[in-house]
């Protein structure tokens, strides 16, 4: 906080600044921007590799949702854990994973986080607390509650963040998980990244309440709605929820209203939304542009410094793709490795 206060150009206005500028040092603020760029460039890079036939299968891109992933992870420490979704590349990077090992996984290589067995949809980095993306909508919700049960029972002090999309809020697992987290007062934060569509079906058509966060009332926990494209708003909600969880006061449901620029997956023809709608979000509400504008407005960084961050991100992405290309393929002999812990 003190570091930030020094960076302020106008004395006495510190208290009026948005949350993150009061809470974090300049270095942390710039690191958050760097990771948001890293997420976007990673996904653009992965998409490009896919188009060129270097990556097979499919992938679900979160381009446009970077502030949600990053803002939620800002108050977390390495030991805290997350469960992620099929649209989980951002969560993975925000929690601290290395893009080179993520690229390697997408390329199906042994150096990938899952040794080439998981791919995009199961990307994980347990060493930074990411228990894994999930191919099943809502699949991670009860698992996060279980991780929080471990934290409480073994008194590890960890909190668990459970990312899920708006689609998952109509799965039974969502309701069962929130209920159990509440009755047992577990240190878990449920984060709904509401990008407006579960594949092609809008929340208006699929969900009986106006906001996913409204459902928190049914489970006696705070339900917080934030503009998921404003980093500070997301981080502030996360910070409060993390503190509440660490105090032992139980779970929180945060709804980040956001938008994905790309289709659901690689098969999407985008027939369920208009070009105007997409353009509006991209032009007027882009989370990275908005954050960069604030950093300049508040005198935290110059445009040259931002340009330097973008340059270094691009270098890391290029190096990551090269690392993935150069890494070895798994041997066919290893097909049955890790079905069980102790091989027969």
């Amino acid at each position: 906080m003190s570091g930030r206060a020094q960076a302020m150009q106008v004395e006495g206005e510190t208290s009026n600044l948005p949350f993150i500028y009061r809470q974090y040092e300049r270095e942390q603020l710039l690191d958050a921007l760097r990771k948001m760029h890293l997420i976007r460039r990673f996904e653009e890079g992965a998409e490009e590799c896919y188009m060129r036939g270097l990556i097979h299968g499919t992938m679900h891109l979160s381009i446009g949702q970077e502030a949600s992933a990053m803002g939620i992870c800002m108050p977390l420490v390495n030991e805290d854990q997350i469960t992620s979704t099929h649209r989980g590349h951002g969560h993975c990077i925000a929690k601290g994973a290395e893009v080179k090992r993520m690229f390697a996984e997408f390329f199906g290589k042994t150096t990938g986080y899952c040794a080439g067995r998981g791919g995009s949809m199961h990307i994980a980095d347990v060493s930074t607390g990411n228990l894994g993306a999930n191919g099943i909508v809502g699949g991670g919700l009860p698992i996060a509650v279980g991780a929080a049960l471990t934290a409480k029972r073994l008194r590890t002090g960890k909190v668990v963040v459970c990312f899920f999309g708006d689609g998952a809020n109509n799965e039974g697992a969502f309701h069962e998980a929130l209920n159990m987290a509440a009755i047992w007062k577990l240190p878990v934060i449920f984060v709904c990244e509401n990008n407006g569509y579960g594949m092609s079906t809008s929340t208006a058509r699929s969900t009986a309440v106006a906001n996913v966060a409204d459902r928190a009332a049914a489970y006696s926990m705070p339900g917080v709605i934030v503009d998921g494209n404003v980093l500070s708003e997301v981080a502030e909600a996360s910070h409060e929820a993390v503190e509440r969880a660490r105090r032992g006061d139980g779970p929180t449901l945060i709804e980040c209203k956001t938008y994905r620029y790309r289709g659901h997956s690689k098969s999407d023809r985008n027939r369920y939304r208009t070009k105007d709608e997409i353009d509006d979000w991209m032009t007027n509400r882009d989370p990275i542009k908005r954050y960069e504008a604030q950093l300049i407005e508040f005198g935290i960084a110059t445009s040259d410094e931002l340009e330097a961050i973008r340059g270094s991100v691009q270098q890391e992405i290029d190096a990551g793709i090269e690392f993935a290309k150069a890494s070895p393929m798994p041997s066919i002999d290893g097909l049955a490795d890790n079905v069980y812990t102790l091989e027969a």
Partner: protein
Amino acid sequence: MNAPVREISYSQAIQEAMAIAMEADERVILMGEDIGVYGGAFQVTGDLVDRFGSDRVMDTPISELGGAGVAVGAAVTGLRPIFEFQFSDFAALAMEQIVNQAAKMRYMLGGAVSVPLVMRFPAGSGTGAAAQHSQSLEAWLGHVPGLKVIQPATPHDVKGMLLAAVADPDPVMIFEHKLLYKMKGPVPEGHYTVPLDKAEVRREGRDVSIVATSIMVHKALEAAEVLAGEGISAEVIDLRSIRPIDRETVIASVMKTSRLICVYEGVKTLGVGAEISAMIAESEAFDYLDAPILRLGGSETPIPYNPELEKAAVPQVPDIIDAARGLARGVR
């Protein structure tokens, strides 16, 4: 130095195993519906809540999917949960977490995690509970790589296999036939384990191999006794585990007797018997067969309520005797 052996029931043996595991390791917790003060629908957990407290003998809400998922998440992050389904039929509500998550997590993550989870499934017919509380669904889970699926048939085995399951780093599914809960048998005191991947020859014989699972082991032994009086020597193998299947024991037996009957309570088609039969057909034992392989399994129906119909829906001792007689005489 052998531990003293007493006669206790199958359910007492399970309870004893759980208590020993919890005593030895504070990471072991029990989860399930009404397993606390109620003691479990079949009184298997009994009074364990008094001993270990409600934090470790956790009543879950009636949320099988969520509860199973919480157990998965707890297992991945450091606890050793033993999760009780009230009836194995309710596993249908939790298949997502069992099949898509618990079974695959280690593989999908390239070996970065293990899922040391035990799930217990009270299974089988014979209690008049009809179609939604009487099924034998072990073959469903036996089809899933990443799981281990066992069917202990005796109090001795269920205690030793449960203790082996708790110590195992991977998810172990235990199918417990409800009619076995009250069966008594010799059980050593204290800690011991029984391997999760070995069949057991319960009775040696020359003329026909009867490979049975769970309660059918006892029916097969009863049948073997009658057959012995007729001069037919039946070998009874308790399969004990359906994933993995102990190939060596079954193949060696068939090579000795040249005849095979599979007996299991699950629906006959696409079940455990099909797997055993195919395994023999593909093995060196095939050339030794003197007769076609027979399967005695559950009928192609839901389990009915009427007690006579209910009995007719699963193999009984006379069915096993008839099948063995036919095979021994060279007729089917």
